[in-house]
């Protein structure tokens, strides 16, 4: 699908795409909708356009936004042992480390599970909504998208959801543990985060930010 660039041929740089993982150079050829352009050397996905991807990502982002807010404040687990009851929300869990020097850890935890995913959702909406509506890109949209991409490894909502499952197993024989509404919200969140990643073609976003009228 995509040709290996010929060193003797003087192609202009805009017709080239370079694999960010292994630095291999290819002649740019945008694949059909639903197809993928994959680096032949390291198998990284370079371009993967999907039909109506922008609209789907916006829908998923909006859903994620409300789920994070809901999941933050509703109780997500409750415990009952010999008449003693306790129920906690994600905010409570994050601030479990709030004594002394562990306060730093509390802030980091709250950031990783709530604020980073929230910031990424807002940035994604800010960048994609004008593109999908065929409007000129929002101001500093490129900086926003770059920042959102840099934050990607630090968004850990789905890891927290799995942490819930592990914690459940650990105390299941100590006490009766029940799920609150936020637990199911976090479950949904994991599915949405994975879905958003599979629709997002980063190259297409950069391309439409660069040439707003062609897309």
């Amino acid at each position, binding site marked *: 699908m995509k040709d290996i660039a010929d060193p003797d041929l003087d192609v202009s740089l805009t017709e080239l795409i370079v694999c960010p993982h292994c*630095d291999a150079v290819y002649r740019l050829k945008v694949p059909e909708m639903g197809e993928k352009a994959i680096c032949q050397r390291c198998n990284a996905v370079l371009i993967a356009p999907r039909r109506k991807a922008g609209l789907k990502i916006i829908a998923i982002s909006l859903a994620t936004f409300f789920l994070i807010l809901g999941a933050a404040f509703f109780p997500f687990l409750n415990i009952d042992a010999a008449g003693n009851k306790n129920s906690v929300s994600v905010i409570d869990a994050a601030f479990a480390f709030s004594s002394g020097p562990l306060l730093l850890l509390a802030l980091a935890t709250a950031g990783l*599970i709530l604020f980073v995913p929230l910031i990424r959702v807002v940035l994604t909406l800010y960048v994609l909504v004008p593109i999908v509506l065929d409007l000129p890109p929002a101001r500093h949209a490129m900086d926003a998208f*770059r920042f959102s991409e840099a934050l990607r490894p630090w968004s850990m909502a789905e890891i927290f959801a*799995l942490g819930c499952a592990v*914690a459940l197993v650990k105390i299941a024989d100590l006490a009766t543990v029940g799920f609150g509404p936020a637990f199911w919200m976090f479950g949904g969140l994991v599915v949405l985060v994975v879905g958003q990643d599979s629709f997002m073609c980063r190259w297409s976003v950069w391309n439409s930010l660069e040439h707003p009228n062609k897309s």
Partner: protein
Amino acid sequence: MEFSGTSQQILSAREMGIVACTRCTKAWPMGTQTCARCGHKMVSRDFGSLQRVWAFWIMGLMCYVPANTYPMLQTRTLFQSDESTIVGGAVELAQHGAFGIAFIILLASVAIPLAKFWAIAFLAVSVKSRRATANHSRQIMYEVVEYIGRWSMIDIFVVAILSSLVQLNTLASINPGPASMFFALSVIFTMLSAQAFDSRMIWDEQAKDEDPS
């Protein structure tokens, strides 16, 4: 994706006198400092990156030691109070007969972090040495390390969930120990170390090997 010709060879941007943006894949002439499309800083090969890799690696290892020697959880029940380290907690679970969970804890909190330290060190050494193993397996190794790195935070989240949930007045309470902070720092530093590594250097040796001259 198939090769269009058999004799054609994949060229790296560096050999073509091009510098590429690792954030948005756009190509620019060699020597361009920042990508004009997305504003990301560009270097053809980040040779200083190995120093950053090792600096974060050492910080991560330094934090990993107290993470294992200090208690991770302080459990107070009606009559006793106990402090357990990561390994101690797993041994205790095994003594109660929960071998499965003990094994998972040992795997996730001891084996995987140690394997991560080893893998990053191996990759950083391998780009310097001449006798390098298959590039493909090294690339996969790098991707696995980058992917798994974040998942080590799960331990910290479990401690956070347990210590906020199990607060049952006098009956039982669980509180985080100092090891939790060191463990979190260790995970963050190893993530930074893996991110600092310039994976394009893995493939440079191969390009040299294939060169007939």
